[in-house]
C-alpha cells in the first residue's frame, strides 16, 4: 500500500526576495524534524518559495505512529503521599494498584507501565502545523488587521491569507489536515498569479498542485524560475548579437520577485556609454534590478538592458519596456550628472573635507588617517621596490573618491572611481591604479596587487588599520570583526607572500605605531602591541596554510622561535620542516627529541630543578656521549650557518646528521645513574638536543 503524502502551503502577501530560500528550508526542517520526533519517519521532502507562498511536500509518511511502551520509575513504597500522587498523575494512573512494585538494593519502589497507542499521523500533523506557523523564525515579522490588537495575535513576515494542508496517498482523494491559526483555516484552496490568474484554485496532491499553479501562471520552483530567466535573457541577448553580463546574485533576487518570469529587452541612449561601464551596471542593477549586456567582441557594455517582469502583458510588454526605459534614463541621467560633476573637482582638492570626517572616535579624523598612511607608505616604499614619490602621491589620493558623488551613490565602486578620476586628471598610471588596487585583496578569491606602488599603499593602509584598532583594544572576537581586521591581516599576508616580499613585520608595525603616537597619546599597550599583532598574523597564516594543506603545528613550531616576522622565510622554513619530518631521518630525530624532552620533563619535575646549563666535557664517560656532544656542536653551527643563509633544506640536512648519534645515545647510555654529578651532566646533554633543534624549529610544538 502506498504511504500518504503531505502537501502544505502558506499563502501570503509578498515575501521579501532575500528571505524566501531560507524560509523554505526552515519550513522543511521544522516539519520533518517534528515528524521524526513523533516517530513518523518519512521518505522524502522538498520545500519551495515564491514571492507569495511557501510550499512543502513530504512523501511517504506512515499513516499511524508506532505504539509506545514505556516504563516509568516512581517513588519508593511508603513514600510521602504527595510524591505518590504526583507520580500517579504524571503516569496517568488512577491508583497505586495499577503500578507494579519492583525491588532494588534500597528496597521496593513503584513502576508504571505506560502504553501510548500511536495516533493517526494526520492528527499529529494537525497539531504540529499550527505550532510551526506560530513559531516560524522569520528574520522580521509583523501583525496586521483587526486581530492585531488581541494578545497573542499571529505574527508573519507579511499578512498570511490562506493555508493548504492535505494528506493522503497519491492514488486516493486526500484528506484535509484540519487546523486553524488566528482565524485562518486550512483548506484545499490557493490562488494563482496576482494579475494573470487571481481566482481560487482547488488543489489535492503535490503533483496536481504544481500543475494547477503552472496553469495559473505560477512557477513554484525558484530554481526553475532562475533557469527560465537565465536562458531567456541569454537568448534575447544572443538574438541581438550581444552577450549577457551574468550576475548570480541579481538572478536569485529577480527569481524571488516574480511568480511568472517574463524577460524583456530595453535600451537607453548611446550617449550614456560615455559613463564608465561599472557605473552604468551599478545604476541599472542596484536601482532597477536589471541586467546589462555587452558586445562579445569588445567586452564593452552596449546600450541595452534586460528586465525581468512578472507579467504577460496584453500589449506584449511594450508599456513595461517603455516604463523601465524611462526610469533607467532618469537614473542614468543622474549617474552621468554625478560623474561629470565629480570630474570637475581634482581629487586633491577634496582632501580638506576629510578634516571634518571622523574615522573613529579614538583614532581621529580621516584626514589624520590619510596622513598616517602617506607617511607609512613613504617608509615602506623602498622596502617593496616602489618609487617613494609616486607611492606617497598615491597614498594621498587613494581615499579621495570616497567624497565623490558616484561613490556616495554606489559605495561598492570605491577605489575603481578613484582610478578613473586619477586617470582623468592625468596622474601617473601606477598612482591611478593604486587608487583602486590598494583595497585588494578584498576577499579570499580577489587578486593581490603586484605593482610596487599599489603594494606600498595597500600594506600601509592595512597595517595602519590593524595597528590602530589594536592600540585601542578593538580586536576581533569570535564571530565579531566589525572593522574586517582579519581580512586586513590576511591581505597583508597574501600581498607579502604572493609578491615574495622580504618585509620584517614588527619593524613595520613599529613605524605605524610611531605615526599614531605623533597625534595620539592615550593609546594602550603600545609596547606589547607588535608581539600580539604578530601572533594574530601567525593565526591568520595558519588558517591560510592549512587551507593549502600545511600542518598548523609546524607553523607554531616556527613562530615560537624568536623574531619570526618575515613571512616569506616562515613559510619556506615550514615547508622545509614539513619535508624533513616526512623523511625517515626527520621522523626518528623527532622521536629522539620527544624522548629526550620526556625524560627531562620527568626528571626536572622530580628534582624541582632545570638542566639547561652546558654539560661538562670532563664528565663524559662513554663514547656515545662524546660523539653526540661533538655532533651537536657541529650540527648547531652548520644548521645555524644554513639558516643565516636562508637555506632551510641544508639546515634540515644538517639536523638529519644528529639522528644516528641520538639513537646510539639512547641505545647505550643510561641517564638515571646513581652518580648524581654524572646523571646531571647527562640530563644537560639531553637538554642540548632540545637546544640544537631550535636552530630550525621548536620541536616541542610539533605533534606526533
Amino acid at each position, binding site marked *: 500500500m502506498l504511504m500518504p503524502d503531505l502537501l502544505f502551503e502558506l499563502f501570503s502577501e*509578498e515575501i521579501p526576495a532575500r528571505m524566501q530560500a531560507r524560509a523554505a528550508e526552515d519550513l522543511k526542517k521544522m516539519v520533518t524534524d517534528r515528524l521524526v520526533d513523533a516517530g513518523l519517519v518519512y521518505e522524502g521532502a522538498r520545500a519551495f518559495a515564491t*514571492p507569495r507562498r511557501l510550499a512543502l511536500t513530504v512523501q511517504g509518511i506512515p499513516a499511524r505512529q508506532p505504539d509506545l511502551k514505556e516504563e516509568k520509575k516512581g517513588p519508593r513504597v511508603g513514600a510521602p503521599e504527595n510524591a505518590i500522587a504526583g507520580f500517579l498523575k504524571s503516569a496517568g494512573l488512577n491508583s497505586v494498584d495499577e503500578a507494579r512494585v519492583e525491588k532494588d538494593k534500597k528496597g521496593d519502589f513503584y513502576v508504571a507501565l505506560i502504553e501510548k497507542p500511536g495516533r493517526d499521523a494526520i492528527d499529529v500533523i494537525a497539531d504540529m502545523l499550527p505550532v510551526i506557523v506560530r513559531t516560524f523564525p522569520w528574520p522580521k515579522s509583523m*501583525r*496586521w488587521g483587526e486581530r*492585531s490588537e488581541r494578545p497573542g495575535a499571529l505574527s508573519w513576515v507579511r*499578512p498570511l491569507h490562506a493555508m493548504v494542508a492535505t494528506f493522503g496517498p497519491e492514488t486516493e482523494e486526500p484528506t484535509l489536515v484540519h487546523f486553524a491559526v488566528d482565524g485562518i483555516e486550512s483548506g484545499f484552496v490557493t490562488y494563482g498569479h496576482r494579475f494573470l490568474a487571481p481566482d481560487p484554485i482547488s488543489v489535492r496532491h503535490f503533483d496536481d498542485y504544481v500543475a494547477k499553479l503552472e496553469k495559473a501562471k505560477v512557477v513554484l520552483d525558484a530554481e526553475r524560475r532562475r533557469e527560465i530567466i537565465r536562458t531567456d535573457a541569454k537568448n534575447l541577448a544572443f538574438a541581438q548579437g550581444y552577450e549577457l553580463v551574468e550576475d548570480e546574485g541579481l538572478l536569485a533576487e529577480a527569481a524571488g520577485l516574480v511568480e511568472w518570469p517574463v524577460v524583456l529587452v530595453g535600451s537607453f541612449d548611446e550617449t550614456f556609454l560615455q559613463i564608465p561601464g561599472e557605473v552604468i551596471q551599478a545604476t541599472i542593477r542596484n536601482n532597477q*534590478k536589471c541586467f546589462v549586456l555587452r558586445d562579445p567582441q569588445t567586452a564593452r557594455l552596449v546600450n541595452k538592458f534586460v528586465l525581468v517582469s512578472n507579467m504577460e*502583458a496584453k500589449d506584449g510588454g511594450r508599456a*513595461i519596456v517603455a516604463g523601465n526605459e*524611462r526610469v533607467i534614463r532618469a537614473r542614468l541621467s543622474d549617474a552621468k550628472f554625478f560623474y561629470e560633476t565629480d570630474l570637475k573637482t581634482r581629487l586633491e582638492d577634496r582632501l580638506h573635507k576629510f578634516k571634518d570626517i571622523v574615522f573613529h572616535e579614538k583614532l581621529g579624523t580621516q584626514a589624520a588617517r590619510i596622513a598616517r598612511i602617506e607617511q607609512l607608505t613613504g617608509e615602506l616604499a623602498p622596502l617593496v621596490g616602489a618609487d617613494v614619490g609616486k607611492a606617497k602621491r598615491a597614498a594621498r589620493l587613494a581615499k579621495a573618491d570616497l567624497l565623490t558623488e558616484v561613490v556616495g551613490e554606489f559605495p561598492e565602486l570605491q577605489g575603481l572611481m578613484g582610478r578613473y578620476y586619477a586617470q582623468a586628471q592625468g596622474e601617473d598610471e601606477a598612482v591611478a591604479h593604486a587608487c583602486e588596487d590598494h583595497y585588494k585583496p578584498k576577499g579570499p578569491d580577489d587578486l593581490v596587487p603586484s605593482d610596487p606602488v599599489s603594494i606600498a599603499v595597500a600594506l600601509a593602509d592595512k597595517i595602519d588599520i590593524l595597528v590602530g584598532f589594536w592600540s585601542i583594544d578593538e580586536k576581533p572576537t569570535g564571530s565579531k570583526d566589525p572593522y574586517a581586521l582579519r581580512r586586513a591581516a590576511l591581505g597583508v599576508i597574501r600581498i607579502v607572500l604572493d609578491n615574495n616580499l622580504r618585509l620584517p613585520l614588527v619593524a613595520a608595525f613599529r613605524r605605524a605605531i610611531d605615526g599614531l603616537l605623533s597625534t595620539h597619546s592615550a593609546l594602550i599597550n603600545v609596547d606589547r602591541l607588535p608581539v600580539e599583532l604578530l601572533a594574530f598574523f601567525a593565526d591568520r597564516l595558519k588558517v591560510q596554510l592549512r587551507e593549502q594543506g600545511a600542518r598548523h603545528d609546524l607553523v607554531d613550531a616556527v613562530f615560537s622561535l624568536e623574531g619570526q616576522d618575515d613571512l616569506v622565510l616562515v613559510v619556506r622554513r615550514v615547508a622545509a620542516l614539513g619535508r624533513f619530518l616526512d623523511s625517515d631521518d626527520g621522523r626518528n630525530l623527532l622521536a629522539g627529541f620527544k624522548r629526550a624532552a620526556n625524560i627531562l620533563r620527568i626528571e626536572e619535575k622530580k628534582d624541582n630543578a632545570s638542566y639547561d646549563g652546558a654539560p661538562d666535557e670532563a664528565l663524559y664517560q662513554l663514547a656515545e656521549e662524546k660523539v653526540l656532544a661533538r655532533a651537536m656542536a657541529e650540527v648547531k653551527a652548520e644548521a645555524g650557518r644554513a639558516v643565516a643563509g636562508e637555506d632551510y633544506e641544508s639546515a634540515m640536512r644538517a639536523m638529519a646528521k644528529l639522528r644516528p648519534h641520538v639513537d646510539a645515545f639512547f641505545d647505550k647510555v643510561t641517564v638515571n645513574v646513581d652518580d648524581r654529578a654524572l646523571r646531571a651532566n647527562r640530563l644537560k646533554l639531553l637538554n642540548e638536543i632540545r637546544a640544537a633543534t631550535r636552530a630550525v624549529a621548536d620541536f616541542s610544538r610539533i605533534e606526533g
Partner: protein
Amino acid sequence: MSELPPYMRPERSFQGLILALQRFWADHGCVILQPYDMEVGAGTFHPATTLRALGPRPWNAAYVQPSRRPKDGRYGENPNRLQHYYQFQVILKPSPPDIQQLYLNSLYAIGIDPGIHDIRFVEDDWESPTLGAWGLGWECWCDGMEVSQFTYFQQVAGFECAPVAGELTYGLERLAMYVQGVDNVYNLNFNGREDNRKVTYGDVFLQAEQEYSRHNFEHSDYEMLFKQFSMAEEACRKYLADGWADKEKSRHLMVLPAYDQCIKASHVFNLLDARGVISVTERQSYILRVRELAKACGEAWLKTQAGGQG
C-alpha cells in the same frame, strides 16, 4: 472615468489625478481631509496619521500633504528633485484584509491598467527615527518605478499599534509624470488644459523651488532657527505638562497643540540640517530630542478620547 471631461483625466492633469485619488478613497469610506496647516517632512507627520494610528479606534482617512525636505532642493534645476512636493496619504485602521487589492484598484482609477503594466511589491521596511516609528511593507513598483510606499505600522511614537494601521503614500509628482509621460516635473500639466489656458507645474512651483533652495542652503537665519528649535521643544513639553487633567495622569486635554510644537521642531531641525550647521554627532542628538517629544505626545494621545479613553 470615461464620463470625465478631458481636462480632469488623471493622465492629462495633475489636479485631475489628485481628485481621482480623493474620489476613489472617498468611495471606500475614507474621511477626505485637507493638508495639515504646518510644514512637515512627510504625510506621516499629519496628526491624522501619527496620532490617529495610535489607540484602538478605527480610522480611515485620505489627504494630500505638501511635504518639505529642505535638503532636496536643487534650485529648480533637477527634473526629479524638489524641496516641496505633494504626497497623497491614506491611512486605514485596522488594515483591511483586501488592502493590497484596494491599492491596485486605486492605481486602476488613475489610469494604470495592471493588464499592461508590471506592478510589484518590493521589500521596504520603513522606519522614522524622529517619530519613533517603524513598520513593514513594500515599495510599490510600476514598470520599475517606485510609485508608492505601503506600510503596516507596527509602532508609532514608541508605542505598539493595536490594531495595526495600513499606510499608503503616493508620490504624486512621480506618479503624474508617469501617467502623463513627462520626464521633467516642471513640464507636468497641472490643470489639464491645453494652449494658453494650460498651467504647468513649473508655472506654479519653479520660482518657489529656486527661492526656497536659496533660503534653505544659503540664507536661512540659523541663529533664529536654533532658538526656534529650543522654543518649540520647551513649548511642547510645557503644553504636555499642563494638559494633564488630574494628578494620576488618567486623561490628557491638550495633545494636539503640543504635537504641533513637535512638528515645528522637526521641520526646524530639517532646515538647520540643510543649512549645514549641524555636525554629524550633533545630528543624532537632535533626532533623539524630536523623538522624545513625539513619544511624549503619543503617550498623552493614548489618554485622550480619540486615543481610546472613553
